[in-house]
């Protein structure tokens, strides 16, 4: 086995996995508190990237013949679109899911699919964004695609290092919020037992809103990092990463944040290793990753980190 190639593929896999992880955490948190699969989550990811591009254009930072090279300016528009996605996450929950909360769960699930389709196909309308992929202004970040470390054949790109660092930092902050703050305690209580938590004086609506805002912000960060790495933005760009992140969340044990991160990293690694080590693996890249997932779920139905819940009758 060629070691530099293997290490390079590990880096490639972790970089892809980091982005899946940022999305997967949002899926898993919402599932943890509401037992709802928020299918619109992958589209919040898309909105994060699209909004950054739209902001960059409307503020005159990029035009066909001119690009403002400034990390600060980019960081500012990125933060604005991340916050906007947080607000959007709040609104989606407030307007689409909350009215249905005491109805059968399938109602919310179908609403989630509806919101997802609304964002995807609404975004494809000419007056909104249009279905044509457009180039993301990576040129605003000078030197982002330069190598950070070059070790013989091995290249670690600044972009990949940035993505990995941002993901690790955000996961650190998130685990601090969940494990060390009162809000986090309330969040865990709600995910443990919904109605009992309410009886203990926890404001359910507030906790659920916070969950959606946090998840949506993380998805927006993922969307922007994704667009920096693959500078092509369009309204359907959230579809495949969204599905894969969902798979990663299930793989790690849905409802479990550590599980989502580990599941996402493993999925990223499996994808690149399939390409590298299976004959004509690149044709089956997505397929084989999902086959492995099915096998793992057959052996361990609650996912890698999921708790096996015994239903008492």
């Amino acid at each position, binding site marked *: 086995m060629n070691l530099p190639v293997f290490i390079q593929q590990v880096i*490639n896999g972790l970089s892809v996995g980091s982005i899946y992880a940022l999305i997967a955490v949002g899926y898993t948190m919402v599932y943890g508190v509401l037992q709802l699969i928020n299918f619109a989550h992958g589209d919040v990811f898309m909105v994060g990237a699209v909004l950054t591009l739209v902001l960059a254009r409307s503020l005159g930072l990029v035009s066909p013949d001119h690009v403002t090279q400034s990390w600060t300016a980019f960081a500012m528009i990125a933060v604005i679109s991340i916050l906007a996605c947080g607000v959007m996450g709040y609104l989606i929950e407030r307007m689409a899911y909350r009215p249905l909360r005491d109805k059968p769960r399938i109602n919310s699930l179908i609403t989630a699919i509806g919101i997802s389709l609304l964002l995807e196909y609404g975004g494809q309308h000419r007056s909104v964004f249009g279905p044509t992929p457009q180039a993301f202004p990576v040129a605003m970040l000078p030197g982002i695609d330069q190598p950070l470390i070059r070790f013989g054949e091995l*290249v670690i790109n600044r*972009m990949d290092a940035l993505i990995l660092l941002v993901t690790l930092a955000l996961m650190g902050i998130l685990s601090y919020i969940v494990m060390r703050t009162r809000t986090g305690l309330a969040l865990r209580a709600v995910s443990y037992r919904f109605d009992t938590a309410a009886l203990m004086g926890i404001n359910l609506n507030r906790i659920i809103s916070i969950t959606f805002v946090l998840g949506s912000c993380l998805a927006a960060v993922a969307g922007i990092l994704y667009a920096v790495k693959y500078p*092509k933005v369009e309204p359907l760009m959230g579809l495949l990463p969204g599905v894969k992140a969902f798979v990663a969340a299930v793989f790690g044990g849905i409802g479990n944040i550590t599980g989502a991160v580990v599941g996402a990293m493993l999925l990223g690694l499996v994808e690149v290793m399939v390409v590298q080590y299976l004959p004509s693996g*690149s044709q089956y*890249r997505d397929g084989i990753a999902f086959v492995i997932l099915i096998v793992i779920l057959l052996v361990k139905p609650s996912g890698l980190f999921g708790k096996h819940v015994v239903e008492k009758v």
Partner: protein
Amino acid sequence: MRQWLPATCLICCVWLIGFVGCDKSSSSVGSNDVLVGHVASLNGDTATFGVSADEGVRLAMDQINAAGGILGGRKVRVITEDDRSLGDEAKTAVNKLITRDQVCAVLGEISSSRSIAMAPVCEDMKIPMLSPGSTNPKVTQGYEYVFRNCFIDTFQGEAMARFAIEDLKLKRFAFLYPINSDYGVGLRNYVAEYLNKVGAEIVANESYAEKTDSDFKAQLTKIKAANPEAIFVTGYYTEAGLIAQQAKQLGMNLPLIGGDGWDSDKTLEIGREAVNGCFFTNHYSPDEERPEVQAFVSAYKGKYGGKVPDAMAILGYDAMKIMADAISRAGSTDPMRIRDALAATKDFPGASGKTTIDKDHNASKAIVIIEIKNGQFTYRAKIEPK
């Protein structure tokens, strides 16, 4: 009952709006114009193909009408349907053009996969179809009513391979091609065929999924380990730009060689400095000095605010002119007679070259090789058909 009232009103409104919409379009049909349909990807992954082709078609239409129209003064009117770069939509669009708008002939598509989806519809309805730029051989194979106005991929694949071996003097090659594209798979196979024939080495053969994949680093890392001297990337421009970028990020300094699917300013916009030093084969170059090319380029720039026409624009332009010529020679808008006239097209003086439609309904034209230098497409060489 009361709660149904708003819903009922809404439905009535939508219904009425629908009617008004219908009225508007049906009133404009029925004049003495010669209606020609154009199916184009005005939006979606390959939007620049459809937009350019449509601009070319409309420029030709204006020139034909300004010169007095066809069939004794009747004006040509093009109805364009957008397929959003989707095969199913192309099929729906062509159906609509034929059954609702009653066009006598159809132009389109650029993408081979979409032309392949449209061809059986035109064949069944017996409406002649002329694809401006689909290069996959399957587009016209076995059809009586389907034609094209460009070379085919057997020739293009050979030209790419010959250029790499004879001009760039390279010996070891890799492939990275879209597995879900008729065009991409076909072109890859024709390049490989020639490489095998002359005994050049193929060291890696990787694929990706067009439209959905954005990450090519896994494939590129594997290709890099096999140490080729050039990579043939037989997909469309969006992925080509991303692939070039990711190859550079992995520290790979080798030319990527593509086909006419690379011809879009988006290649430069997405690929940026990473596409410098790459090559692709094309239908024409705006730098060519032939007077027909220069006349077209200046007319196009005049109509579209100084925009430099790409190959899809000139092919759309020629396709419209060839179609108008065929309708004139047919002497009527009878689709059967237009078909026969199209099949008999010989030495038509098109802007992209003299066009003769052969017995397989293909046109043989020269291939131009474009080199990407300093963020610009520059003319490198020309290969004449045999």
